[in-house]
Each structure stands twice: as C-alpha cells, then as structure tokens.
C-alpha cells in the first residue's frame, strides 16, 4: 500500500488533497466547459490522452 502511494507520488506533479492548477481550454468539443472555473463544485475526471 505504501509502495503504491509512493509510486503515485513520484509520477504525478500534483498531490492528493492539493488544489489543482488551472488549465486553459484552447478548444472544446461535445459541449465541454468553456473554462476551468466551470468545473468548480463537480466531480471531475481529467483524462490526458494522446494519439499514436
């Protein structure tokens, strides 16, 4: 359990319980939020994806 937590901590720049830095949405599709502030008060899953 401790090892898992440690592994997570080393990979992520943000920590559990911290306030996440704002992200600028350059363009959104599918009725996405127009700004990071719009996510306030919601449960949010941020999925960073890439094509390959």
């Amino acid at each position: 359990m401790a090892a898992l937590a440690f592994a997570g901590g080393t990979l992520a720049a943000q920590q559990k319980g911290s306030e996440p830095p704002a992200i600028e949405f350059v363009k959104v599709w599918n009725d996405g939020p127009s700004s990071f502030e719009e996510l306030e008060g919601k449960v949010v899953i941020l999925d960073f994806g890439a094509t390959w």
Partner: protein
Amino acid sequence: MSDEEEGKIEKTFINDLGAKYPMAKINKSDTQKYGIRFYPSIYCFAPDGTVHSVPDDRMPSEAVIKTLLQNVSLAPKLPDGARYAPVRSMWEGKQYKKLDTYLTKILGADKLDDEMRTVFEGQREELDKRAAKQVARVGKVSQGPDYFAAKATLQKIQKEWLGFEAAGAAKIELARFAKDRTIKKEIAASKSLNKLLRKYDPNKISQRRKLKDGLLKFAKKNAGTYAGEDAAKQAARFR
C-alpha cells in the same frame, strides 16, 4: 484532453472514435504542470476543488474510474469534526432540501459560535450556488438537440433538487417535452437508436457490417432528427 493539434484531436477522438464526452485541446505547458508522462493518465477532482486521485503507472480501466467515483466525497470543503458530520452526510446523500432546512435552522440559532457561523454561512453560499447552477442547467439542456439525454437529466434534477427552483423548472420542461410533437419524435428516435446500438457489437467483424447497414437505414428513416444525424456520423466511422 490532449495537447496535440486540433485537427488530430478532432479526427481521432471525435470522428474516428466517436467520443461523446467533452474533449479539450490544451497547451503543452498545462500537460507539463500535471507531470504527465504516460497516456492515458487520469486525475480525479473532488467537488471541494481538491485533487482526489493522481495518476499511477497502471492503465486506467473502467473499474478504476468506477471506484474513484464511488469514493470521492460530494461535500464541499468542510473542517473536520463531528459537529459538521450531519452537513457532510447530507451533501454525500444529495439531500439538498434537508440540508437547506438544516442550515436555515442552525443559522437562525442564537447560540452559535463565530467559527461555526462562518462555516455554515459558507455551506449556505455553496448550496445556493449549486442550486442556481441547476436552474441554468435546466435552461441549457432543455434547448436540445439531444432531448433524450435532456429528459434523463431533467428527471434527475427534478428528483434530487425537489423543493428548489430547479426542480420546478425541470418539471415544466418535462411537461413541455411530453406535449411537443417534435420533441416526442426526437426522443423516440434516440430510444430506437440506442436499441439498435445495443443489438450489435462493433468489435465483432461479423456484426460490424450489420450495424453499419442498420445505422445507414436508420439515418435515412430518421433524417432531420438528432438521432438520425448521430446515426449517419456513427455509420461513417465504419469503413
């Protein structure tokens, strides 16, 4: 979200994969701020604006996301302590009317120390803010074009925000949906499309062709509806 080129995001995620969820193009600097080294990487934020989970070196699965969503607290920021437990519990249970009554009662009490008053006033402000957001949400989803999804959202708001302006507004919109012939047609078409999509498994080659033919037939029959357009778009994904 992705920091790749807009055209690439749109082609891959929206057109080819048919993503229905919100997608965003972000800057590389934001990806770096979050320390992303593997794709996909998932963060989860709680409603109190804090990071609930950070990525690890495992591939995020549906089961992992489901667990995250089950464990995240729905309560806004609250100090620790048993005296705030009822408020926390009401947020967690989405008992907004009960919370509203509780806050009104407790804030009306004479013997309330300054710290508690500040905390409960903050909770009142948060509740009012979330209630107002639901009113705005009702207005937005009621405009369509996905009336089938809108109906489900309105029913949820009507149930969860009972006793608030949003629930009343949702009720009015649902009554309008039930009377409006065009909207009824849209909802029926979306229902049929969902049924068609459930019938075939696009991952099986033998069923993919049948699904494509079904979608094309559906798009023709339901031309001019949101579901018809959706079916046409989905059929175009199958080469």
